[in-house]
């Protein structure tokens, strides 16, 4: 682990940049932390979901009487129990969501659109009774032809998933419905002119498969809804305010009628930025008058929760002989699953970001009879980076230029016009490339059958709304209350920023994550925004509390507030203020009742000044030329973190992103049979990497502070999954001389390519 320092006048911090033990660590290693499935209430029933056995079918009828007649069955829910929702775009989640579609994804109405689509749910006295009850629900289907692949879905005679879906973003507007939900286009300059002037042009087509986020914890919820129509929900998610808003919208309730209590989360990676079970649990509870618990099986997680899009990307890029990129054009087709809303828009925006080039990209959002996709770390970007970074690698080779030098020659930097709109502010793209070039890994020798790849990645990062309160207790401790589920060590980072602001020991800060009724509104944990945006709210709330502490000290001393300064956890008289003894946080807190009451700092904000982030990864692989097996033998991830609050959790994010990206590159894929049924809905045959598949992943944190954050923070959670796919593919190309353009780079596929190249 290393940190590359930038700038000469570094501020000195007591806590920022250190590695204290995480406040939630003991409960987690001792098994005391409460995850989604750990909650239970007296009288609780168990809910289960009946799922479609067909990839595409019309629901002719549903007869629930058999299930309702069973002993121990308390309620059955179908789409008829949910309000019909009008089309309306949500602004809350991560990625585009339409409430009508969300409602129909939670519970199929009229048609089932993928194998595993929910058609009914039961609440019963035990999981076993609930399972048996599902078998007594009779659904009559009229099976329809299905389409599983984005290419097939665009054919004129493809079965239509939605007969009211007309492609948006096309002029003139189409007269007939299709499976192409929308088209987006974006770019800068005239790339065709640049391509025509290029000495070298590379044109390639890339394909990637649907992959799952692979969180360890399946979706789980307990809900109780009383006679007064008020509901309380305990759930594991990336945002309890998101659950509240979605459930209210989908059930025709007011948000004020729902309280959501966040559980500890066992992984989300974007996949828990939407709802599946929560609305059903509320309705089952409302109908039965009992609390209802629902927990998905792993198989349900695979069959019915969001994967990341399968994609096809066609890319042309050209450069001059001396390594200046002259233009690029990309066409991106992203599968959205059963409802519109792939992250193709984000892909179109991000793919050229590391480069100061004239480029255009057009993206298509395509529906198919597979589960609706959900956000997955830097949604849409890793597949696009696979295309761009592979072609950049080829162009560098054609020019005979070192691939990092080639990237530096074309690198985006402050003031450059991006292809997606704004000019870049202070970014660390160049610094990150330079740190990668300076790393010993870049020049280390390779053994036979080994190859080395490098790739860049970019992610915008998010700001959005955050709230925090800080409560000063009379023992001189501070409770920091915020409202974002902690998926990456954010409790630790927020506590450290608070300790820094108050000038107190980290042990005296207690970070808590409060329910929807106990803290101001917070957008969900996503977009790598929590340490940045909620961190900013925490800093502001701390400064609010410190101002109050100074006021109290001023009142005790009988001086103006300007006569009091705050340092190292105590109020001190400013210079010339005489011989007054400093008042500690505890001294002031003990006197709070007599000086104006409890001291509570608060802040609510929409965070501006987001710091965009870049990463550069170096990967060495060894390819077995006789079996096609690719082993990652060395890996170094370099990333601009702005400023690393807790470097261990920045490194953890980087290593986690690499692990997931390597899995995506090498072995992960959804496999479907001809009937549209997923063949590998479990971790045995859906192959995420195991620990022994990966080397120690070395990390280098570059710090180019974000001027938009009090401590210089940039989001760090998403960028690290962007470079791994092309870094692995470029390494395989270097080891074998073969450019692989279709994922995964699994042993059979790699061996077939090797055998083909041998003729």
């Amino acid at each position: 682990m290393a940190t590359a320092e930038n700038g000469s006048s570094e501020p000195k911090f007591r806590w920022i940049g250190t590695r204290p033990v995480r406040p939630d660590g003991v409960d987690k290693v001792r098994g005391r932390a409460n995850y989604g499935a750990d909650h239970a209430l007296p009288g609780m029933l168990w809910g289960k979901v009946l799922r479609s056995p067909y990839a595409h079918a019309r629901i002719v009828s549903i007869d629930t009487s058999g299930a309702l007649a069973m002993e121990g069955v308390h309620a059955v829910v179908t789409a008829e129990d949910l309000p019909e929702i009008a089309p309306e775009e949500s602004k809350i989640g991560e990625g585009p969501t339409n409430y009508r579609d969300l409602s129909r994804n939670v519970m199929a109405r009229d048609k089932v659109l993928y194998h595993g689509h929910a058609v009914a749910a039961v609440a019963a006295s035990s999981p076993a009774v609930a399972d048996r009850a599902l078998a007594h629900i009779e659904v009559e289907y009229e099976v329809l032809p299905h389409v599983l692949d984005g290419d097939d879905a665009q054919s004129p005679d493809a079965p239509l998933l939605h007969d009211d879906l007309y492609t948006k973003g096309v002029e003139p507007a189409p007269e007939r419905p299709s499976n192409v939900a929308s088209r987006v286009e974006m770019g800068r300059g005239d790339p065709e002119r640049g391509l025509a002037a290029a000495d070298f042009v590379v044109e390639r087509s890339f394909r990637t498969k649907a992959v799952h986020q692979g969180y360890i914890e399946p979706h789980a919820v307990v809900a109780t809804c009383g006679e007064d129509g008020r509901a309380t929900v305990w759930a594991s998610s990336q945002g309890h305010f998101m659950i509240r808003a979605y459930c209210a919208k989908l059930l025709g309730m007011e948000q004020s009628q729902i309280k959501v209590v966040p559980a500890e989360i066992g992984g989300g990676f974007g996949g828990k930025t939407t709802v599946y079970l929560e609305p059903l649990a509320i309705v089952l509870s409302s109908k039965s008058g009992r609390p209802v618990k629902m927990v998905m099986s792993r198989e349900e997680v695979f069959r019915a929760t969001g994967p990341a899009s399968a994609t096809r990307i066609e890319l042309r890029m050209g450069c001059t002989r001396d390594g200046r990129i002259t233009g690029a054009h990309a066409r991106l087709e992203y599968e959205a699953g059963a409802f519109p809303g792939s992250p193709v828009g984000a892909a179109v925006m991000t793919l050229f970001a590391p480069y100061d080039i004239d480029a255009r990209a057009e993206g298509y959002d395509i529906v198919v009879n597979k589960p609706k996709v959900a956000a997955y770390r830097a949604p849409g970007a890793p597949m696009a980076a696979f295309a761009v970074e592979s072609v950049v690698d080829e162009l560098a080779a054609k020019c005979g230029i070192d691939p990092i030098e080639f990237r530096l020659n074309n690198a985006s930097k402050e003031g450059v016009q991006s292809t997606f709109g704004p000019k870049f502010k202070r970014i660390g793209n160049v610094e990150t490339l330079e740190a990668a070039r300076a790393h010993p890994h870049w020049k280390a020798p390779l053994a036979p059958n080994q190859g080395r790849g490098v790739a860049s990645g970019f992610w915008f990062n998010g700001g959005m709304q955050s709230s925090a309160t800080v409560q000063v207790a009379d023992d001189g401790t501070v409770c920091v209350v915020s409202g974002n589920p902690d998926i990456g060590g954010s409790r630790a980072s927020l506590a450290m920023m608070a300790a820094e602001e108050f000038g107190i020991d980290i042990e005296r800060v207690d970070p808590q994550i409060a329910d929807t009724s106990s803290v101001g509104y917070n957008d969900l944990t996503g977009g790598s925004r929590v340490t940045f945006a909620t961190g900013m709210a925490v800093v502001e709330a701390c400064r609010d509390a410190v101002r109050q502490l100074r006021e109290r000290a001023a009142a005790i001393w009988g001086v103006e507030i300007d006569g009091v300064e705050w340092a190292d956890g105590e109020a001190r008289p400013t210079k010339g203020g005489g011989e007054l003894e400093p008042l500690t946080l505890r001294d002031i807190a003990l006197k709070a009742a007599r000086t104006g009451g409890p001291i509570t700092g608060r802040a609510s904000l929409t965070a501006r000044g987001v710091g965009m982030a870049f990463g550069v990864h170096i990967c060495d692989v060894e390819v077995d030329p006789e079996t096609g097996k690719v082993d990652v033998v060395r890996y170094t991830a370099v990333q601009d973190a702005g400023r690393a609050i807790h470097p261990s959790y920045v490194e953890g994010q980087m290593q986690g992103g690499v692990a997931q990206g390597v899995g995506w590159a090498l072995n992960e894929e959804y496999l479907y049979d001809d009937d549209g049924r997923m063949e590998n809905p479990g971790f045995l045959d859906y192959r995420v990497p195991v620990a022994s598949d990966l080397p120690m992943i070395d990390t280098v944190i570059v710090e180019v502070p974000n001027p938009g954050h009090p401590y210089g923070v940039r989001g760090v959670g998403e960028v690290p999954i962007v470079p791994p796919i092309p870094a692995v593919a470029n390494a395989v190309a270097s080891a074998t001389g073969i450019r692989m353009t279709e994922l995964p780079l699994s042993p059979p596929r790699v061996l077939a390519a090797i055998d083909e190249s041998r003729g």
Partner: protein
Amino acid sequence: MNGLGYEAPQSVEETVALLARENGAARILAGGTDLLAQMKTGAAAPQLLVDVKKVRELSSVEEDEAGFAIGAAVCTAALAEHPGLCAAWPGVVEAARLIGSEQIQGRASLGGNLCNGSPAADSVPALVAAGASCLIAGPGGERELPVEEVIVGPGSTCLEPDELLVSFRLGSGKAKRGDAYLRMIPRSEMDIAIVGAGVCIELDDFGVCHAARIGLGAVAPTPLRVDAAADALVGSRVDDAALEAVAAAASAAADPIDDKRGSAEYRRKVAGVLTRRAAKIALDRARGEQ
């Protein structure tokens, strides 16, 4: 799972009597690493579990002059802790140690791996190569079968519902003999073999191979004993030409299917590659070089 019973008999006779009484409704529980997973998915719904771990013959490794008797329910981790077995049959032990994870290996057994009947069972090709036989007890007494005759199709064995696999018999340690097992999986562990190859080679005093056995897994409905590949080694010094011939014979003997884990074409190719590589390791062991 209503009415699921559990018995833990102390002897082979008692176990066989229970199995006979239940007439197919009982399942033998050794480590349970396959059975419990099948019960969870509903693929198996026994009325009685007969836990055989308290039966001495099934839960111990005995060594005498004739060789080893490995109890069918001995966990694979215990095999790795048996120095005599590790020295005599490193290929068998390394195959057993590929099953599942470290935790699974505290439960999983050779008997369970065989009786689960999977064509991809890791220990089976290694046991085939080692010339292992199985001691099977039933109401009428005992019978002994070569290990390759036990699995008769995917998920099915030749054992009668009232028969019990008691132990595996393996020869004693021997100089100038080496065995080895390799498998292909897309990951580094925690996976099911796409191809598995077990090879055992015996050399004479002049370094010429005078006996060989080869087992292949996951390339046919059952694990295979491939005599044609073994014949390519016998009489040779296991030189490059012989190793190429072994690879070709193994590929030719493979009769795989396309499935979610690999294509038939891929399996056929890799069967040859792994057999050749396993033969080289077995040769090094026979020469005392590894």
